[in-house]
């Protein structure tokens, strides 16, 4: 490997890409850059346009308008077989009539690679996905996880510039999914190929991705690294989709360096303006684990709200509470069970509490329209 430092090159660029099916807009003027070697994820709920976006990059669907570039070359209308891109399909789409070896060799053979090089490269790919010994089987003789790895090997063996993965772990059970997720990340680091990964599972996205575009209704609402998405979600949708959050809605105001929100109960909460733009109808949010529960009457600096514990669930690592306040306020609080040093028992439903958090631990979401 060269060690000369360089600015990350753009591998995939979408400019104003729109896809309509009849009158329905599946993808709505998306513009984004994916850099070389990046693990980039499109995250969003069902029907938000993730697959359609991926299919346009792969060449299986043509945009209604807009431009798609691969490595600086316009490929908008290039057929799939001429693109230096490979796909791991949601359903794997392994060739049922070919052995695993031939499945993996398929792309190489089409590119005219044969003999020892073919054998070597297929062998390497099989080793990478730890499927040595399965060469002679046919896809029907594989488990879901093995089929998924063959699909991965079949794509990776071609050493494409970009690998597209459409919910490749969707068909697996939770445990295998986590395991394969770690595997995928390892393989991506090892081969250094750009991955564009589609999922609706935020946990999966968070653990693997360098950057995530959170999509909703054909566009993305925020594009950032996992940490930023979690700590500073910029829209209500992102705050709700990535992790759990409490949104404090009310009358928005400004006080010096802080945004203020006056809740229906009359209580005022604050967040520093440096966290983002609240606009005229935004909200202040706070993650459940940033809230601290105090006995009623105990004083604290920062934001405080009063409420009553209505539900307690012990989840091992954490205990989760639902606290209700005045004016229909309902907050989720999670407390690490390590804090048992300060209090010998969990809070019980019915107990009166004061909730507190530092203003800078909250986040600010903007107007719905500013998404």
């Amino acid at each position, binding site marked *: 490997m060269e060690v000369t430092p360089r600015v990350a090159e753009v591998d995939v660029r979408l400019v104003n890409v729109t896809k309509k099916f009849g009158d329905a807009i599946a993808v709505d003027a998306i513009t984004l850059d994916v850099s070389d070697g990046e693990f980039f994820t499109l995250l969003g709920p069902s029907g938000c346009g993730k697959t359609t976006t991926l299919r346009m990059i*792969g*060449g*299986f669907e043509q945009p209604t308008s807009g431009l798609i570039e691969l490595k600086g070359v316009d490929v908008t209308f290039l*057929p*799939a*077989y001429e693109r230096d*891109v*490979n*796909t791991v*399909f949601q*359903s794997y*789409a*392994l*060739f*049922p*009539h*070919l*052995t695993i070896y*031939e499945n993996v060799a*398929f*792309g190489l*053979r*089409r*590119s005219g690679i044969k003999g020892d090089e073919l054998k070597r490269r297929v062998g390497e790919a099989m080793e990478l996905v730890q499927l040595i010994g399965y060469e002679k089987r*046919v896809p029907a003789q594989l488990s879901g996880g093995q089929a998924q790895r063959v699909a991965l090997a*079949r*794509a990776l063996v*071609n050493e494409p510039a970009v690998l597209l993965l459409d919910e490749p772990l969707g068909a697996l059970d939770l445990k295998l999914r986590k395991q394969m997720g770690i595997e995928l990340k390892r393989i991506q680091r090892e081969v250094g190929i750009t991955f564009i990964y589609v999922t609706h599972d935020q946990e999966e996205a968070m653990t693997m991705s360098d950057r995530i575009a959170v999509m909703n209704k054909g566009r993305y609402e925020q594009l950032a690294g996992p940490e930023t998405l979690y700590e500073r979600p910029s829209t209500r949708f992102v705050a709700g989709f990535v992790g759990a959050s409490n949104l404090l809605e009310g009358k928005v105001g400004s006080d010096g360096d802080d945004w203020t929100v006056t809740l229906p109960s009359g209580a005022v909460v604050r967040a520093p303006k440096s966290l983002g733009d609240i606009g005229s109808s935004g909200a202040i949010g706070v993650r459940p684990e940033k809230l601290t529960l105090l006995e009623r009457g105990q004083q604290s600096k920062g934001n405080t709200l009063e409420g009553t514990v209505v539900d307690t669930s012990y989840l091992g690592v954490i205990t989760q509470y639902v606290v209700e306040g005045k004016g229909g306020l309902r907050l989720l609080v999670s407390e690490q069970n390590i804090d048992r040093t300060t209090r010998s028992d969990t809070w019980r439903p019915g107990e009166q509490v004061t909730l507190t958090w530092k203003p800078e631990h909250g986040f600010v979401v903007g107007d719905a329209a500013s998404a």
Partner: protein
Amino acid sequence: MGMIRRHPALVPLLLLLPGLVWLVSFYLAPNIQMFASSFWSGTLESGFSFSFSNWTNYTDALGKYQQQYARSIQYGFAATLICFAIAFPLAYFIAFKAGRARSALLFLVVAPFFTSYLLRTIGWRTILGDDSIILGPLKAAGLVDPAARFLDTPFAVIAGIAYNFVPFMILPIYVSLEKIDRRLLEAAQDLYATSWGAFRRVTLPLAMPGIFAGSLLTFIPAIGDFINAELLGNPNTTMVGNVIQRQFLVDRDYPTAAALSFMLMVLILAGVALYGRLLGTDELTSKAI
């Protein structure tokens, strides 16, 4: 029910029973009877007697009618090829391109079955006739010799067979094409196969079972057919089916008819076995590469 629960091994037997009864009474028993009668000697009037020494029935029949056998194979083969050439593109179109017209087109494929086989074949006499809608205008335009004729030629017989059996080729091919997961074709394209490449490496191998079934369903009845040769051919286009039919129903020479039938069956079985080997699954896999 209790008995089934206590003896689950009975289930497959029970499921097979109706078919077994049917096959034993209408296939196996008549075949044994036919096999026996192929070793008969004598006539209907004087009565038949069985003897293994009558194996000469076979050699006699073969010697006398080898031409008809050869013709049957040729015609059957030609008709099957024609059927394939017509059926594959059509089935492909219906499966991949027809969209909503699919069921309507499939209905049209089987629509001829609403008319009797005999009537349809007689209909071909009109179509192929000397002054028919095909030859008439061609002759009028001076494009073909006024003396040219289709009817009562091998061409007419083969055309008739192909026409009558083409649905049996279309339907199985259609079914196997229709079953192909479209994402496999995208996967092939994703892996640098052109449209033609994807067709050759994915569509065609996956359609093989349908092609296999279709060819058998066409070739087997075609080789034993006699109606087309009877209605559309001439005395020099008789097939083995015509001979068997005549021996059984006109000349009442049951031993010869039985020997001919038996040899035809063996011929077909041998052909199917060979064909199956050629297109067998192992072969399929390696050929697709």
